[in-house]
């Protein structure tokens, strides 16, 4: 069921499910397809030595993994039709996400505009970790109605 309707007010805030970035899910996302030879592929998301050789303190979670969490929240807000018209813009990944972090995707309605029989919404989007530090910030649009 969609959570944003034509009647949703500017200023309203929404949150997705909290998700703990356990290594099993990080490897599953970034290690390559299970059937690929040598799974998991060594990279800065799966291998601490690889990450430290780049100057990172430890492995970092792929930004597309929590961008995917944000896509889930947008589909929760606008319905699966968001996959036909949804946009995420000016997205910046501003803090390293590591194994064990607890992330929550959040969105706040900052604009709405009538477009024929539908309403186009603009949302500030961000992902926070367990310390309430923002790790992703950006803007999203979606259509209701």
């Amino acid at each position: 069921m969609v959570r944003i309707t034509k009647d949703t007010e500017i200023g309203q805030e929404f949150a997705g499910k909290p998700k703990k970035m356990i290594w099993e899910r990080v490897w599953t996302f970034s290690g390559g397809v299970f059937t690929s030879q040598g799974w998991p592929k060594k990279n800065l998301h799966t291998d601490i030595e690889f990450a430290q050789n780049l100057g990172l303190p430890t492995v970092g979670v792929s930004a597309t993994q929590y961008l995917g969490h944000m896509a889930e929240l947008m589909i929760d807000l606008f319905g699966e039709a968001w996959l036909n018209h949804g946009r995420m813009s000016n997205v910046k990944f501003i803090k390293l996400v590591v194994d064990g972090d607890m992330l929550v995707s959040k969105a706040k309605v900052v604009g709405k505009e009538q477009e024929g029989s539908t309403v186009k919404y603009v949302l500030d989007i961000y992902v926070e970790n367990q310390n309430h530090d923002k790790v992703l910030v950006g803007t999203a649009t979606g259509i209701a109605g």
Partner: protein
Amino acid sequence: MSNQQTKMKSAHLMGLGEEFEPLEFIVTPEMNQQYLYAEEDFHPMYIEPRGDGPPLVHPGLLLNMSNNTRSPSFYLPPGWGEIHAGEETEYINPGRVGKKFRVTWKVIEAFEKRGRPWHVLDILVVDEDGVIIMRRKMTNTFASWELKR
């Protein structure tokens, strides 16, 4: 530049207008379920057949498989890594499980900032029927011990 030369070129040296080798892949139900686990999102629309066709491909799978590190020609020397710094994503049509997808990558901006190379890539995901699924503009920079000196 030939495909072979492009294949050997380090990603951080790719210039404006150059393209990574495209990737083609088929999304099986098992591959989709791998990403449902990774994303902790088990919505039935990604699992069960629907009135209008097969289940949908999880958007996280499409994001991951359209990172340029997935290109067959992606190469960085040992000690180098690519850092995803920014993103514009446009969802145009849902992908369907069972379809073959083709991803293309083109460098549309290449610049240096604070001593590091940066790229903006135009990324297109299209299915076997020519339906455009997703368009991205991905901003990357590069990290290595060499750059830290």
